[in-house]
């Protein structure tokens, strides 16, 4: 399963000057499709929080953060701030997924479809794994059943990435579940 969004830990600081020999070091965890974009996003946020720009700062480290337990299902709560046509709003969304990156991707696609908000208008404030009893949304709570049963009527056959999508296929797809 390749995810579009990867989580990066970016560490940076302002360049040392005569007045400030050891400037404070800032660390941020953010989501981006690749490292180049992660670095740019880092400077964007840091500019908004502190008086430092890319031109008078330096990047100390950038590491990708990987999911610790990608095989267990977790309930993720995501707090975000997004820009709509009329202003900025905060939102809290819940997703049930195996990895944090997967749930972030779900969030971006859902925001795009439900609210027509594009990726660059969304800022992730916080993410957390929520234990089952603290979940607020019905759509995640409906799966909190150890004896859950629902029929899968047919299997939708999709290529793993959009790149492999073709109009014609060699054989008929098998829809049996």
């Amino acid at each position: 399963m390749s995810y579009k969004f990867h989580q990066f830990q970016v560490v940076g600081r302002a360049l040392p000057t005569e007045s400030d020999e050891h400037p404070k070091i800032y660390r941020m965890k953010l989501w981006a499709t690749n490292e180049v974009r992660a670095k740019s996003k880092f400077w964007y946020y840091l500019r908004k929080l502190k008086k430092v720009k890319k031109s008078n700062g330096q990047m100390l480290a950038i590491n990708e953060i990987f999911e610790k337990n990608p095989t267990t299902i977790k309930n993720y709560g995501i707090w975000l701030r997004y820009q709509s046509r009329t202003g900025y709003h905060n939102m809290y969304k819940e997703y049930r997924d195996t990895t944090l990156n997967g749930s972030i991707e779900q969030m971006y696609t859902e925001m795009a479809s439900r609210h027509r908000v594009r990726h660059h208008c969304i800022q992730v404030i916080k993410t957390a794994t929520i234990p089952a009893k603290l979940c607020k949304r019905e759509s995640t709570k409906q799966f909190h059943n150890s004896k859950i049963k629902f029929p899968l009527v047919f299997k939708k056959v999709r290529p793993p990435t959009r790149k492999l999508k073709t109009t014609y296929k060699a054989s008929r797809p098998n829809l049996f579940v």
Partner: protein
Amino acid sequence: MNLRFLQKELIQLKREARLKGGFYVNPEPKMLFIIRIRGINAMDPKSKKILQLLRLRQIFNGVFLKVNKATLNMLHRVEPYVTYGYPNLKSVKELIYKRGYGKLNKQRIPLTDNSVVEQALGKHGIICVEDLIHEILTAGPHFKEANNFLWPFKLKAPLGGLKKKRNHYVEGGDAGNREDYINELIRRMN
């Protein structure tokens, strides 16, 4: 090549720094590869001049460039018209072997033989194509002469296309600094 040794050393230094709870900052790359991605129409005169100075007169022309404050400022000015990044050994080798031409007596001569390189750069100690590649890759003392000897690379339009020329790479487009991803673009354009 001692490139492998340098890479191993880098990893070692990083691990050492992390052990002590500090950071090891990678040295900034000393040279980069620029590709012009916009055509010649509707350009403002200052950017047009800068692209001329960088020898990027045609769309999908590529040149190597040494990194210093002067060139970085030039690049900043023409960012919407070019894409650039840090090529690796494979990119440099492929570019020079496949699309390498040298400037001899103001003529564009293909690098078919080491004698072509020796004739132009012999006096700087670069006598073969491998020497040339090493000089370019490591931005050696005669980078300027070696780079100037190389005619600007005429690359083909990228297979698979560009994402969106009008936007910066960071915004999902193609212009500007894309660091190591330039290698992937060079594979498609070579």
